[in-house]
């Protein structure tokens, strides 16, 4: 009896070894970079983690095909290195000693990639399934581009500044005109003072209009 059991086990073991080896049909290589992802909080990769991995793959297969026949024992791991990297296959218990087609496994993993990553606290980059590409998440696009909003703010400030300066310029201009007309009115009221029969204003030196008679007489007056 014991010998029969031993025989069965050895057959199964050999069969498993046949099914799971590097570059086998329907086998996938997994590469894990725990230290890169977690740094000081890195955990060690041991048999328990391997058990969790088998469980996650079995879970993914169950969710994908929604038939609850895949067991943890169906997932075979081999060639575990220090990297950490290893190969795995999923066997089909209904059919004898065959592996589930790679496309099914790939689809199942893709569907549940997020759950698998989170179980190990890793990401797409640090828990790599070589040959299974991940879909890139779309960039977050706000409804109005941010730059347009900033531009609007800047432009409003500029326009406000221009309006303020133009209006203050117009006001200053008006005030200056009003003052000039007031001054003119004031001067008209003042009597024209005369000296030697000539109005005082004519005596003021105007640029370019120097009265030669008076200019020559300048040295008669002592300077102030």
């Amino acid at each position, binding site marked *: 009896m014991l010998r029969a059991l031993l025989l069965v086990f050895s057959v199964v073991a050999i069969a498993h070894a046949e099914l799971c080896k590097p570059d086998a049909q329907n086998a996938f290589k997994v590469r894990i970079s725990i230290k890169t992802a977690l740094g000081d909080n890195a955990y060690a990769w041991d048999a328990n983690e391997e058990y969790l991995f088998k469980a996650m793959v079995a879970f993914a297969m169950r969710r994908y095909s929604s038939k609850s026949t895949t067991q943890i024992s169906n997932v075979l791991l081999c060639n575990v290195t220090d990297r950490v990297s290893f190969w795995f296959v999923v066997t089909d218990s209904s059919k004898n000693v065959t592996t589930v087609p790679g496309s099914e496994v790939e689809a199942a993993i893709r569907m549940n990639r997020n759950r698998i990553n989170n179980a190990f606290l890793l990401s797409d980059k640090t828990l790599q399934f070589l040959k299974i590409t991940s879909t890139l998440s779309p960039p977050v696009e706000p409804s109005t581009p941010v730059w347009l909003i900033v531009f609007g703010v800047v432009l409003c400030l500029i326009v406000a500044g221009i309006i303020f*300066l133009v209006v203050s310029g117009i006001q200053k201009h008006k005030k200056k005109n009003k003052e000039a007309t007031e001054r003119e009115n004031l001067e008209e009221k003042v009597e024209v003072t005369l000296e030697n029969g000539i109005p005082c204003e004519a005596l003021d030196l105007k640029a370019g209009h120097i009265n030669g008679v008076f200019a020559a007489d300048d040295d008669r007056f002592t300077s102030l």
Partner: protein
Amino acid sequence: LSATPETPKEDGRPKWDNKFQYILSCIGFAVGLGNVWRFPYLCQIHGGGAFLIPYFIALLFEGIPLLHLELALGQCLRKGSIGAWNTISPYLGGVGVGSWMVSVLVSLYYNTVLTWVMWYFINSFQEPLPWSVCPLNENRTGFNEECHESTAVNYFWYRKTLNITPDIAESGTFQWWLILCLAACWAIVYLCTIRGIETTGKAIYVTAIFPYLVLTIFLIQGLTLPGATEGLIYLFTPNLNTLKNPRVWLDAATQIFFSLSLAFGGLIAFASYNPTKNDCEKDAVTVAIVNSMTSLYASIPVFSVLGFKATTAYWDCLDRNIINIINEFDLPEESIMRQNYTSWISFLNSSYPEKIAGLKLKSCDLQEFLDQSVSGTGLAFIVFTQAIILMPGSQAWAILFFIMLFSLGLSSMFGNIEGVFTPLLELQIIPKSAPKELLSGIICLISFLIALCFTLGSGSYWIDIFDRYAASVPLLVLAFFEVIGVVYIYKIKRFSEDVEWMTGRKLNLFWQITWRFISPLLLLIVFMAFVTLQMQKPPSYTAWNPKYEGFPIKEEKVYPPWVQAICVLLASLPCVCVPLVAFFHLVKQKRRSKDPSFVPPEVSSCQGANS
């Protein structure tokens, strides 16, 4: 009879609020984008610290004398460039017209560079920065191909900002986002120059001082970055052998000349608003020295950041190689670190040479990364933006950096616009009763409409052309005629009397020698060398062509003949003004001399105009 004491400057000419405003405006005009993105590059490629020797010699014999000449001229004659040169001699009026033309051409394209800066500024308010990630392609399986082959920063600059065409002959379409930013930039320029120096004098306090603040912040930040010391050592290590190359001396002379913004007419305009009794000699020396010190000061943070970028690129290269090796040999993580990389590589190469060869590892050399030198827009919009992504808190650094660039460019724009505005105001293009705001508005509006050409797909190629041809050779020619005109036509004796009257002390022998002989000679040599170098090869440009085999390397192309004709036109139009106006005046003089009632106008000088 009492003669009212003649209050000087009752001619209604605007004046500076205080001396500091004037000095700051001159400094702001001189200190521009070139101080940040051209000087450090020249230092790097011309032997580091050794470049300072020709630079300071050029400053002493070319920069400071020409600057003093312009400031003294403007202050003495109290007119803009066209009016001033007409006063010196009507035959030299062409120098003023040429300066005015150069100011117009430069204002057009310079503000477009500021448009790019503004575009990057308003895009810096997002997380993540838009130039840090490649956009996805249509079916979301990977990244956009053009972006993937080059880099995300390159893609954002050439595609998202410029939307550049592969050839200058292809104009492409108007880029509406650039048009918006261009409108905003011209609105800012209008806001600041609306009433001439009344408003620029207030704005300059911010735009001239703010860059120094930001440079200091970047200096402190830059020095704390890893790899900063490598960058600085690389920049400043003197290599005296480069001084044997005449190209280095030429670059030093042209850098000083263009950096001080001479022959634009803007400095003459600024100085014309001064009181005549002002020490222009001290002003000139101050402005020139501050300009050069700023160049040096700016090169320190720039090179710290470049050293940081090179070191990060080097580490990335190493890390990629390490990951490849670890994956290939299934070694545990962190078994190969950057420090023991070389020993591991030699060990593995001896034991498994075929496997190592199969990996196709890139050779990582820090010197090679440091050697990638860039100047101009490439430095600001490609290299620096890439370095900013790597810093923590990138948005803040990006915002600070682009505001600083904008202030630097804006204060230079004030000088350019003043060089256009003041002569037009004096020529009384608009009636005197009309407000000044109208003239500045018209100038800004017309410039905006013309500058729309630069927002086309091929716009940046055209800006390169304007930069290389309109803002280089004509300035050298005009400056040469300026010195010759003042020294030999106005006569140095009269000018030195004027300067003596203004500064209150006798003109130093140094100025006599430099103005009479050294500066004109230097200008002539620089001009000859410059033109010879340009003529040596047919004018070409590098185009960004995604369909090119060597992409992402830019494709070398030659300008088509019609573009070359435009280049020649741009370079010669301001220069041709000088003989044209002289000839025109000669003809007018000949006609007038036949008229017996004609009295020749008095030639005025400094003191005559103000007594």
